């Protein structure tokens, strides 16, 4: 079981690095899908079955397809992107590394919370998550549907062409 955890951890870290390093955006998307699948493996190891399935459906099934669709639509599937200057890239790597060092330093002596030893194998099953979702967290659940509606309207508003400009060119005042 432990060996599976380290295997999934290595796969997710390597594919996450590849997402950042890949020149072609399509390769980045594929690497991110691999990363998400390995994270779904972590969920299964934690016995969070509901989340594992939702994660695969929502992320790999919907969000990454959306990313791939936009990349294909905008014809970006080639590495013509201008790179940031070397100084900026080195600064980004150093900043990320220092941030990681700070976080790891904070948990150097353990995470500081006593483990209560109340393991419950059924906590990630659909029944337990669903009961919690529809009793304790019912209001946030309903409010999130309003969030989705506004996101949908926002995406349509942003995506539609201006009426006065049939070429779909600049929106007045922006450019």
């Amino acid at each position, binding site marked *: 079981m432990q060996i599976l955890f380290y295997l999934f951890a290595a796969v997710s870290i390597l594919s996450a690095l590849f997402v950042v390093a890949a020149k072609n955006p399509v390769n980045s998307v594929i690497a991110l899908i691999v990363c998400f699948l390995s994270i779904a493996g972590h969920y299964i190891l934690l016995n*969070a079955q509901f989340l594992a399935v939702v994660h695969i459906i929502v992320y790999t099934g919907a969000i990454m397809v959306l990313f791939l669709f936009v990349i294909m639509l*905008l014809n970006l599937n080639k590495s013509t992107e201008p790179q940031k200057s070397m100084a900026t890239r080195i600064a980004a790597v150093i*900043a990320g590394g220092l941030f990681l060092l700070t976080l790891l330093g904070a948990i150097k002596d353990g995470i500081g919370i006593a483990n209560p030893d109340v393991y419950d194998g059924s906590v990630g099953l659909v029944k337990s998550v669903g009961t919690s979702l529809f009793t304790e967290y019912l209001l946030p659940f309903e409010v999130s549907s309003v969030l989705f509606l506004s996101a949908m309207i926002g995406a349509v508003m942003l995506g539609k062409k201006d009426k006065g400009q049939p070429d779909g060119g600049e929106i007045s005042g922006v450019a």
Partner: protein
Amino acid sequence: MNDIVTAIRTVPLEHYVMLSFVLFSIGMAGAMFRRNTIIVLMCLELMFNSVNLLLTAFSAHYGDPGGQVFVFFIMLVAAAEVTVGLAIVVMMKRNVDSVDINQLNRMRG
């Protein structure tokens, strides 16, 4: 069910915390590293997922389904964010014919 509980217990919580930190740092560095707006959005997704993993690990170890419900809500918010973000990318491509994030400096004071 007892096998599963033993299996969850074999990996210490600290290792999940470390893995989550590494993924979050990679996402953060990547968001600063790249100029392609779509890659920056993907790095944001990476950071969301590291937080999700951490919440799930704590939830499983502490036997509280609340953490997993929060992961569910984070997934909902991430889906909405990606929808609007990609719409903005499409509009940006239409307006300035580029997805370079350095083009988005018109609101600079």
